[in-house]
């Protein structure tokens, strides 16, 4: 009995989210019944506002959630005009007159179910109910507070736009529309999240996007089973397929100019209401090493910076492991003078080199996480502790050696050059330290082969994530490994679905 009860509880806790059947009910013609039913559905929530008024002598009500609607627009622009208008005789005709005859808001919709009703008022619409009409009209006069458009926090550029996405999806959509004034820009709205009914917008260029790619993406989004969608990151795993990979075939961006550039290459952007990060699908591995500044600078410098980023990537994942492997297994790789210094530094160290490397990287990750979570006024303390603990005390105490501090410093600075790859880099770094410390360069190379195969197996919507490096397309390298000047780049638009290896039809690994 006890076990049975537990299994039942477990079954309830991990049940697949199910839509609420009550939301499919239609509105009642009676205003009171409708309002009462709404209160029941909303659990007598305190922020539900019902403002009663009279329209053409009949009872009516504006329903909204507190703080969501622009009160001034509601009073002056909307409610006041109702009294001035000549409306029909029946509730239905009055409703129709109001809907089609009066211009009271830029966005207005008619609805008939409680599900739509709640969705609209949750999205900041003000809903007008007329007694006798089994429908309502929702007016888009949102007035909820949101963060103003500012500089993106995660993608800094020297040149280029300073605008970043914000939480409301409509604002983000308008930023894209403002930049791409082409009729081929399409925005398709979906609702994802059984309970949250979060607005999700697919953006693409109908003249560039591959239709099969789009269809595949749409079908995947339809299969998303989530109770609540609160951030764009929740969707990313659903967009990928194939075996587990450290690297993702989807990317995120906080910049509208970046998203416009990606969409113009035939990719699909996904905006999620409530998240300032847009998803880009598909996302090539080489794009982690690009940013908007590359296209504003002279080509020779842009090429230099890109190559530097590639170098930084390999440096950050391989340097600690290579150092450990070289010192423990292959000292002949180290120049003599440096080897003498390392040997001197390692004299009297308490721990083996591999453990030193693991220890210091672990400390660094702790400090990094602490620095992210701490409030700003206290954040400075983290840097002081870091400098004292790692830079001085640990070395003096013989826990780590000075060359190791140098290695860690180089490693961490290199990881900051490509912040979008920080997650795989942090894990890979530790993996390579283990491999290097236990199996030497042989283990590291096997690990690198493992990572290489893992990366090469990533295919999103039929596009290999490692293209155009492999499968090699020398022509496409002009904008990945290198950055040729705009006169050449502008001659032919890069379209993602035409990448070498992208015409594979269905995905599948065999």
């Amino acid at each position, binding site marked *: 009995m006890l076990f049975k009860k537990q299994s039942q509880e477990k079954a309830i806790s991990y049940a697949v989210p199910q839509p609420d059947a009550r939301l499919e009910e239609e509105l009642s013609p009676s205003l009171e019944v409708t309002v009462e039913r709404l209160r029941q559905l909303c659990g007598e929530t305190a922020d539900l506002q019902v403002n009663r008024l009279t329209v053409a002598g009949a009872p009516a009500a504006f329903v909204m959630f507190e703080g969501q609607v622009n009160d001034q627009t509601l009073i002056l622009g909307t409610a006041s005009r109702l009294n001035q208008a000549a409306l029909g005789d029946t509730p239905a005709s009055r409703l129709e007159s109001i809907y089609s005859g009066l211009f009271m808001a830029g966005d207005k919709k008619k609805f008939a179910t409680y599900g739509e009703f709640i969705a609209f008022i949750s999205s900041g619409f003000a809903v007008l109910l007329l007694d006798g009409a089994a429908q309502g009209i929702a007016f888009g006069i949102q007035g909820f507070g949101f963060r103003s458009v500012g500089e993106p926090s995660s993608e800094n550029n020297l040149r280029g736009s300073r605008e970043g996405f914000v939480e409301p999806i409509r604002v983000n959509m308008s930023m894209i529309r403002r930049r791409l004034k082409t009729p081929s820009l399409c925005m398709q709205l979906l609702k994802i999240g059984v309970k949250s009914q979060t607005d999700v917008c697919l953006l693409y260029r109908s003249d560039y996007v591959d239709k099969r790619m789009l269809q595949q993406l749409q079908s995947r989004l339809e*299969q998303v*089973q989530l109770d609540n969608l609160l951030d764009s990151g929740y969707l990313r795993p659903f967009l990928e*397929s*194939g*075996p587990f990979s450290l690297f993702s075939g989807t990317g995120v961006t906080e910049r509208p100019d970046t998203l416009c550039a990606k969409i113009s290459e035939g990719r699909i952007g996904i905006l999620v209401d409530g998240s300032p990060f847009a998803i880009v699908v598909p996302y090539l591995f080489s794009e982690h090493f690009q940013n908007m500044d590359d296209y504003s600078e002279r080509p020779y410098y842009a090429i230099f910076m890109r190559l530097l980023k590639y170098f930084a990537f390999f440096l950050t994942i391989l340097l600690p492991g290579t150092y450990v492997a070289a010192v423990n*297994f*292959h000292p*002949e*790789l180290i*120049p003599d003078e440096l080897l003498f210094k390392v040997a001197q530094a390692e004299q009297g160290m308490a721990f083996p080199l591999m453990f030193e490397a693991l220890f210091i990287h672990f400390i660094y990750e702790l400090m990094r996480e602490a620095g992210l979570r701490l409030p700003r006024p206290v954040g400075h303390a983290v840097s002081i502790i870091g400098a004292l603990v790692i830079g001085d005390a640990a070395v003096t105490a013989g826990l780590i050696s000075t060359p190791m501090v140098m290695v860690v410093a180089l490693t961490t600075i290199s990881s900051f050059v490509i912040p979008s790859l920080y997650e795989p880099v942090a894990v890979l770094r530790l993996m390579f330290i283990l491999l290097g410390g236990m*199996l*030497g*360069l*042989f*283990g590291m*190379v*096997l690990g*690198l*082969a*493992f990572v*290489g*195969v*893992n990366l*090469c*197996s990533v*295919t999103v919507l039929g596009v*290999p994530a*490692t293209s155009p*490096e*492999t*499968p*090699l397309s020398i022509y496409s390298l002009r904008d990945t490994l290198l950055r040729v000047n705009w006169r050449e780049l502008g001659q032919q638009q890069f379209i993602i679905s035409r990448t*070498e*290896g992208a015409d*594979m*039809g*269905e*995905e*599948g*690994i*065999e």
Partner: protein
Amino acid sequence: MNRETPIVKNHIGTLGATALVFCCRIFYLLTYSPKSEEYGGSVSMLAFFLAGVASILLCTVFWFMLRRCGAHSLPELYQRQGRVFATLCELAVLGVLSGSALSTVLNFSGFMSSTVYPGAGAQVMAAAVMFAAAYGAYSGMEAISRLAIPVTLVLLIGLATAAAGIVGSINPVYLIAPGPEGVPQVLELFFQALFHNTEVLLFLILSDKIREGSPKIYAWGAAFSMSVYQFTILLVTMALGPFAYVRSYPIYSMLAAAELSVLTRLDMINMVIWIFITYIRCAAYLYCICGCIRRMAPSWQRGHVSLGVGVLGALAGSYLCGGLNRGLALWELWSGAAPFVLAAGVLLLSVCAALLRARRREKE
């Protein structure tokens, strides 16, 4: 959501396939040693060139035989001839592929444990390579062939760097053409190289998965690998001279002797590349082994098969590396005509069976 994606015929890119053939064929260059003290590397150069040309011709002929029978790959051909026949062929092909994979690992771990990691257990290296290669097999041929492209490029850069580092020691005096007296040695080495080459079988198994699965791809890969063989053996012969005979692994010695400015340990840098080559070759063969097993037992999941093959391969590799004579027996068998005879036998029997069937149908 359905987690197990259906088996779909992916298409390996032509460049990836060429790079794959190249990497698989170039593997044995690492452990090359001159067979003739008198003529040095010139015997090997001639023999490998002729063996390469012969293998291209063989591959072309075999491929056209397949196409004549209406099949795009060897498994497709013998699968059509009945279940029993198909199973026997699969077992034979499985034997050839397993032998090749094991001999790769044996060769590699023997080399590593005697040069780079003296005193290390060859078993550990064999097991590690097998496990890692099993993951590659699981990831699929597309991933392996994509990885082969940058590895090929890096290998060429590595060899070019080594050549630049050893150019000061080159002395053409050591290059002596084999006259008529050298012909028997050339022939012996030619047949050895030809029979040792199981890449033709690999290509014929994978040809339906390659985008334009024509023998041109094999020809390019083989020609490219031949060129690299010729260049490297020429370099070793001219740079090391008699030193090459006293070393078990003259290529490694040449790399160790090469110095280019601050790069004094080109041997270690090149070892990194050779580990990749070994990995790709092993993964390719393990992938085909998994394919054989899955055709015989279609209900088995890809992940389980790959894991099983990896475990078995690791155990077998460790066992063979564990004793001096164990690996030697396999090596001697694989240096002979056994793999070639098996593979050619499977192909010819399948073609005969297909033609017989076609004739029977015509009569009916």
